[in-house]
């Protein structure tokens, strides 16, 4: 299996005034294409920080990080924008949909970022939402959707651009048990059928069975 993510000795230190927080202190990680990695660990352990680094939203203070052949650790801000457009899909606990746009436009936005023409982007978005069982919800704004529906829209947005890796930060943190199952089934399906590599961060042990690998991040290191 080809190597997709390769991190060596990653550190990330937050400084707020005099307060210094070592969120990551020397993280090593290898992830192959097609894996489904579940990362657990206590709150404040550095899980979100790690996902942000892998997704090119933030940069490490030291260590090396390569994702899909791209040197994320040293890339410019501008190069990282392009990297995210081409290789990364993000899913968050609170969905992070744009409240003024309907489901279709939220999904289309990811394609528009890549330069897909307007009509094609909207067509593809509607198609994807239909595949996710949201055909009758395309014209609804987030406030008119349930938590589970919003998360499915967010997942559609994340995979619309066929990314190499889907980074999910507590994707079921804000939904009930039944919805958790539906969302995780969807992620597992994307992993199996489309070969999307998934890294999901969670507090919920119910997610463990979905993973092909379980990691625990504690105090900024994989213990």
């Amino acid at each position: 299996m080809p190597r997709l993510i390769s991190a060596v000795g990653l550190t990330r230190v937050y400084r707020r005034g005099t307060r210094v927080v070592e969120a990551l202190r020397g993280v090593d990680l290898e992830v192959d294409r097609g894996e489904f990695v579940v990362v657990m660990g206590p709150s404040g352990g550095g899980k979100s920080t790690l996902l942000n680094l892998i997704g090119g939203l933030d940069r490490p203070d030291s260590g090396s990080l390569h994702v899909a052949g791209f040197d994320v650790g040293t890339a410019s801000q501008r190069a990282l924008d392009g990297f995210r457009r081409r290789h990364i899909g993000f899913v968050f606990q609170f969905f992070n949909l744009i409240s003024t746009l309907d489901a279709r436009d939220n999904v289309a936005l990811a394609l528009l970022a890549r330069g897909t023409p307007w009509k094609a982007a909207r067509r593809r978005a509607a198609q994807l939402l239909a595949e996710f069982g949201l055909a009758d919800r395309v014209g609804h704004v987030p406030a008119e959707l349930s938590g589970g529906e919003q998360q499915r829209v967010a997942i559609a947005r994340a995979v619309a651009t066929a990314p190499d890796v889907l980074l999910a930060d507590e994707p079921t943190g804000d939904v009930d048990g039944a919805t958790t199952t539906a969302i995780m089934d969807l992620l597992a399906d994307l992993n199996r059928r489309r070969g999307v590599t998934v890294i999901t961060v969670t507090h919920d042990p119910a997610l463990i069975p979905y993973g092909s690998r379980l990691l625990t991040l504690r105090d900024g290191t994989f213990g």
Partner: protein
Amino acid sequence: MTVLRLAWRDLVSDRVRSTLHIAAIAPIVAAYLILTAIAGGLRDQAVPAEAQHIVVVSPNALDPASGRLDPSVLTLVPQVGGPDVASATPMIFRPIRMADRIVQLRAAPQDTWEPVHHLALLAGSWPDQRDDIAITEGVAIAAGWNVGTRGEIFGTTFTVSALVRAPGTKFASVWMPYARAEELFEGMSGFQMVTVVPAPGADVAALRDRLDAAGGGRFAVYFESDLVAQQGARGSAADNLAAVSTVIGVAALAFCGFNLAALTLVERRRDIGIARVLGFAPRSITGLALTRGAILAVAGFALGGAAALAVLATAASTTLRSFVFVPSLPAAAWLIGITLTFGTGLAGTWLALRRAAASAAHTLLEEW
């Protein structure tokens, strides 16, 4: 194209805020345009007149139409001036109501209209019927009258036979032969002004002083150009007013534009973060926001401009004392208005967005 569509969709889906934004810009645009039009109208009125002509008016010179000169002035002027005076002609000068409009009537002997008062025929023919009158361009524009228009003055129906061009303060007035006006007012009106044309080579300053001294306060003597300048002073006061209101307008527009953009930003930091997560570059986001700002500016300016035109249309002419003037909006005023609306709106958007658009995406999302 995509940016435009996205900006449009965003504005449409955020209807309430978009409407409020436009509603905040439009009145400022309208106020600026209206004030500029009024200032422009006053300025147009003050076209230079004959520098050498001397006018004798009642001492209440603020508004010559409100006075009435003693008939003896007409004989006094040639006596005092002697050979320095080429001619001295009376003029009836008063506001009248014609076809439900207040207009300024000037009545002078018809043989003085061209040589003394420099009226130039633009259309129609000089009055030759008993109830013919002439109107100037200012009145034609303000009232929408033309050759052939009929209207009642003091219970008599008059017909506009001539459209004329007149210099200076005479820009907007209705002209009637002197004798016909005297008859119409049954001698009750007297005359309000005497126009003195100095003889060629005469020392006009000395002549003016001699006439002034002879009047002893019973009347005031001016160079016609000074009277015009005095009217012009109102124009420049209005100019200052327009300048001040422009400054206020600019400040208000900038303040409004900036704060609306900043408010939008505060409420939409998360959306900016989302766009960054999806891989939109800071400059794409700024471009989108600027496009959004430009659409709002277009809408605000269009609405404000339409409102200004509507207001100016209902008040096509304005009467300040007995002087009628026509608000005018030159292309430059529109251009400045458009530039201001866009410039301040876009600058506000840009300044407010500059930092957020470039912030690391995760910090924008974290706050929620």
